[in-house]
């Protein structure tokens, strides 16, 4: 079973959170708290959540992203999603979260 891991990088007022693995109800539970603490710790202007390495995501992933968006907003940060895998992007767009949270595709980042 693939576990969900998170890597944090901070520079130029940007906190980049790179998630890797599968996001479901089980794996989201543990990730939630850790990500929220990091968002509060850095209080960066921008929080980027990189979903390139997320091979699977269901509505628990949606909940994770939306919940972190709200949490980041409260901490004064703007949250964006970068490089979602096709499966993750389909779920995000199906739910219409892209209308609130921008999805950005960029190379080599």
């Amino acid at each position: 079973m693939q576990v969900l891991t998170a890597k944090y990088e901070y520079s130029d007022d940007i906190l980049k959170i790179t998630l890797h693995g599968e996001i479901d109800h089980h794996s989201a539970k543990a990730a939630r708290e850790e990500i929220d603490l990091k968002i509060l710790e850095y209080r960066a202007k921008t929080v980027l959540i990189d979903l390139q390495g997320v091979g699977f995501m269901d509505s628990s992933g949606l909940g994770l992203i939306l919940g972190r968006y709200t949490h980041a907003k409260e901490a004064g940060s703007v949250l964006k999603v970068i490089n979602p895998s096709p499966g993750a992007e389909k779920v995000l767009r199906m739910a219409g979260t892209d209308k609130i949270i921008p999805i950005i595709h960029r190379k080599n980042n």
Partner: protein
Amino acid sequence: MKKAVNETELVFSAVSENESFARCAIASFCAQLDPTLEELSDIRTAVSEAVTNAIVHGYRDSGCGKVYISCKIYPERTLVIKVRDKGCGIEDIALAMTPLYSGDPSGERGGMGFSIMESFTDDLKVVSGVGKGTTVIMTKKFSPFTFPSASSENG
């Protein structure tokens, strides 16, 4: 309905560790239909939603009870998946299926489970009785199989 050409059944404990097991097992069973990557991803997602609902709502995250999955392949590449729990049941199915409605007070699940099942399969039926449990029946018709040589000729 015609007779199933192949079928499998799964029974497992209603614990969240099994969400990943269930979607992987059903995806492996579907491999014989040679699905596209998107079709396989749709099935994995829909199964994950149904199983999570059974664990979180059916059994109220108690870790007690079992989830029952039956998966049948019918002629013309049609797959029917039934996910059943013997949990608390749904009082108001129409309300539970409303997009963004969530029975989970933490608000961390998004309330999009049924919407995803509906959008990622071709048909979704929900049968439920309070105190008896819930059965979710999902049907998906896979795109016609094309031999690699035929598809390369067509570009």
